[in-house]
């Protein structure tokens, strides 16, 4: 996993609430057995019409949203299915950071396992950013160690992230290799198993 510390990028606004993972990556693209190559299917049914042609009115197809790497969306982003294909497709398309007033639990966790930062801001802060991101020179800077987001034009907010996840993301660690260091504790737990039968 690539470490993330200070991140700069332009943002795209998707002003919709409750964007579910069926929209982020529709089910017909979940059959691949690799982790890569999902970006071209991101928001497929919103981006393309039935003949496979781009829908010009969809937010990400608009010219000012090209070459963006931060996605700003409405509340409860990533609800529904647990498919990790959702962050895989966002990342493969080019989004490393997602900003929203709130995230669905499983999606949020899936993002952090893939070196992506989900940033929850207030409704007002999200609205403020959405109103400004279409300007060509508007850039956001995320300082993950210090948990701040600035726009270089006087807007600065801090955001919450669990210290464990922050460290994982900043250092780009592989979580399984860390957990394997707890092998003794896991074995001890298994030995004195407190509840439930064997399977």
């Amino acid at each position, binding site marked *: 996993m690539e470490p993330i510390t200070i991140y700069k990028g332009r943002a795209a606004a998707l002003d919709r609430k409750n964007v579910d993972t069926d929209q982020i990556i*529709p089910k017909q693209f979940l059959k691949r057995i690799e982790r890569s190559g999902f970006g071209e299917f991101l928001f497929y049914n919103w981006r393309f019409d039935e003949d496979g042609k781009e829908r010009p009115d969809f937010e990400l197809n608009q010219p000012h949203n090209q070459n963006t790497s931060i996605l700003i969306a409405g509340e409860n982003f990533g609800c529904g299915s647990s498919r990790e294909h959702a962050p895989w497709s966002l990342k493969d398309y080019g989004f490393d950071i997602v900003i929203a007033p709130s995230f669905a639990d499983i999606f949020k966790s899936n993002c952090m396992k893939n070196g992506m930062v989900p940033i929850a801001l207030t409704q007002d802060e999200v609205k403020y950013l959405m109103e400004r991101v279409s300007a060509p020179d508007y850039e956001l800077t995320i300082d993950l160690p210090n948990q701040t987001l600035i726009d270089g034009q006087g807007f600065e907010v801090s955001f919450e992230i669990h210290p464990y996840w922050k460290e994982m993301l900043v250092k780009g660690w592989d979580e399984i290799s860390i957990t394997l260091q707890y092998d003794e504790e896991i074995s001890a737990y298994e030995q004195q198993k407190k509840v*439930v039968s064997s399977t």
Partner: protein
Amino acid sequence: MGKSIIEKIWDRHIVNEEENKPDLLYIDLQYIHEVTSPQAFEGLRLKGRKVRRPDRTFATMDHNVPTVNRYFIEDDIARKQLEALDQNCKEFGIRLADLDSPEQGIVHVIGPELGLTQPGMTIVCGDSHTSTHGAFGSIAFGIGTSEVEHVLATQTLWQTKPKTLKLEVNGKLGQGVMAKDVILYVISKFGVDFGTGHIIEYCGEVFRDMSMEERMTVCNMSIEGGARAGLVAPDETTFSYIKGRKYVPKGVEFEQYVQEWKSLASDEDAVYDQEIILDGSLISPMVSWGTNPGMASGVDGNVPTFAEDIIDSKELNRALEYMGLEEGMPITNIPVQHVFIGSCTNSRIEDLRQAAEMIDGQTVQKGVRAMVVPGSQSVKRQAEDEGLDEIFKSAGFEWRESGCSMCLSMNPDAVPSGEHCASTSNRNFEGRQGAGARTHLVSPAMAAAAAIYGKFVDIRNLKKTEQVH
């Protein structure tokens, strides 16, 4: 201060606890299916890692499997995914209920059937509807593929302790009102994210009176309210359901477990982060009209209007446009061209019995395509033993093989664009049952009635209602 069942189970599974870290939680059981596991096994192979506890892992094939001619999988990529699961299970020594197995079925149907799911456990699967298993008094939640790999390698997960939410529904449900209606009512009232960050404990007379099948329907849809998990404390209903099942301990050992499982019940002075109390007698049979499970109304109600201001006008506009509905129209004026009875929400034997009772010698309306997809091979055999398949077939329903089928249409079963489907599944998201498909979530009895009438009807006004529920 007392503890809730959620805290009791959580605390018993903590392997490591330290400051500034989530808890390292032991996972008793992991279910695996073909769609969310191939990349996890590949990850293990790339690092030369083993599966720590193959004996605490169980796999099946469900999402991609055809429900007719099930051995002929036209889609090359889908077939490769099934083959990959077969090879991965062989390589890592994991039990697999494949297409040849009499135990095959939807993962959330077969786990409880086999007695793998038991009270007090922590259970995960790369599938958000893992919350189903909470019906047995376990903490069961969906995870992503990276977490699937993490559990395969370590049998643990780093998890921050969730908040607790007590959802109490008191009173008696009216005739024709079922578990599906209760959970759709709750989500329509509180929204699709009221449970985010929480585990729900379902309490009160309504859930106590429910069978295990009904509790599974409720817990299944916890995730549609944003909660990763929801559970019901185990009781005599639970114990009598699991007793004698394949993987459940027998005899004296079983009785010892029952004593331990009883001790899981929440203490009377347990404190929850949130509490909700509702009156079950106020619930009508529900129908979803929009593009998420919170957009639902009683069958005796209407599609909302912009003036009512219940839903953000932009969201309402998008939903009505996609669904092809007018604001304010009565739910009973919505036409139905497809009916799907199946999915991990409502494909168990009791669900099929309720749908069959509703049919009672009537036939599917002309122009309606209706199908029943049993949740497992075991449910299918039992339904056939009871003659339910004949009731469905002679009414004009298609009788299929088990799998996820039209709940998410990864296999060939789909609804054409612009057509309406009365579905017993769990999600009415855009495109879920096919590009442009218009899904309406309902109970099995409501779905069967919609098949007969070609539109939604209030089953409480039908003579047969007295026999249902």
